[in-house]
């Protein structure tokens, strides 16, 4: 499987460490328990497209947010996790 790294280009996924759901937003310190529980533990995990983090540990060491289909493994796009979606 190939992961499009915005810096390094198409690379085999063996260069990356998978790092889970890219959609998680750390709640404010005073957010309620539900919000925190949701952030740390609950995942949508619905079949189909999934935006997820791949850490390019053998390359540029950036966390890449990759849009990938969980059924077909087709990769639709990627961006640096550090870059807000808007800019990508």
């Amino acid at each position, binding site marked *: 499987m190939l992961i499009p790294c915005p810096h390094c280009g198409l690379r085999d996924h063996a260069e990356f460490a998978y790092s*889970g759901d890219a959609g998680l937003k750390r709640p404010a310190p005073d957010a309620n328990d539900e919000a925190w*529980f949701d952030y740390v533990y609950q995942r949508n995990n619905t079949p189909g497209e999934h935006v*997820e983090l791949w850490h390019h540990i053998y390359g540029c060491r950036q966390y890449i947010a990759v849009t990938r289909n969980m059924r077909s493994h087709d990769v639709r796009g990627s961006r640096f996790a550090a870059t807000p979606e808007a800019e990508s």
Partner: protein
Amino acid sequence: MLVSIKIRNINDLTPSFCYNLIMGRQYSAFRLFREALNGQQGWPLAWADAAPKKSYDIIIIGGGGHGLATAYYLAKLHGVRNVAVLEKGWIGGGNTGRNTTIIRSNYLLPENALFYEHCLKLWEDLSLDLNFNVMFSQRGVLNLANSDAQMDAYARRGNAMRLSGIDSELLERDQVRRMVPHMDFSDRSRFPIYGGLLQRRGGTARHDAVAWGYARAASALGVDIVQNCEVTGFRMAGGRVAGVETSRGFIGAERVGIAVAGHTSHVAAMAGLKLPVESHVLQAFVSEALKPFLDTVVTFGAGHFYISQSDKGGLVFGGDLDFYNSYASRGNMPIVEDVASAAMSLFPSLGPLRLLRSWGGVMDMTMDGSPIIGLTPVDNFYINGGWCYGGFKATPGSGWVFAHTIATGAPHALNAPFSLDRFKTGRLIDDKGAGPYPWLH
């Protein structure tokens, strides 16, 4: 001696047993012999492929080992016979039919150890109980240790097991060598074998037979097994599940349990639940059939790898997850290569032997590596999932406690700790100590 009808005590007079006996359906060598004389023409259906009724007392979604076992124990132990098992494809087609068939109860944490030991005890009687040979082979499960720290960790685990009444032995290097001599004990080994933890009562079973055996026994007790019936949604009424929408129409139910490991998240989502679960793919491999030379299940501590040899002669082995969320029951090459490297390193003679088939199973990976069996916020909706990659060995116990939970509306002491709310309370069951990173468990 070959006759398998044996009544050890009154409990053996199970309904299914009597039914089979009366209907002349009882499997036995004698029956096999009789059938040989008329060309095996007299065998009835192993299980009736039922059409769904309008409604049931209990619907179990998922016709894998866990779902079928649940239905069987509901009927056998709790007297609930108006039960349907809904399977979207063919029974046993999920992870029941795609695993490396390893059975063990060698866990560190007491919650796990006690539960899996209960499963193991059920395994020991399963063939006789179901009158279907599931070929539970107690050939032993040997976990190799490759460092002092690992030996200490295994000692901790083994001692905890022994104090919980579970068999376990700590082997030194030379004892391991006597047991499995053709592993690499040379000095070119990257990770020398220090010793290992052995559970002799562990072993393997014939995975398909487990689904078929439970299906046959449950069917004999009046459970409807409905194949090619995909659940597409839940009909809710007053915060309760009223029934399920399926590819074969609406089916009403008093209570609904799901046992669809691998797909728990999206089935639960239909009932409005979000779970601490991710789906990941785990590959497994089988070699060409060879004259048996490995009679124990061996797991390799350094570089995740486990291997056993089936009764057909194939080496059955596997390794790590593919490490990314997936609902596709197939993996990729890096894991294939890494598993083969580990295989060659542990057994340097495997080089010329050939990999025959590889496959992938979709695993519910939970946030602490332990399953979820119990109640949900929806009060007549019960969940059984999150088996990570250890679901097969749990099959009988999982069905047993799930049946209890659904029938009585409350978890059994054995599955109480595996509640969904443990993640909220922080009373986690993290045998590996890996934290909320499902792909690391």
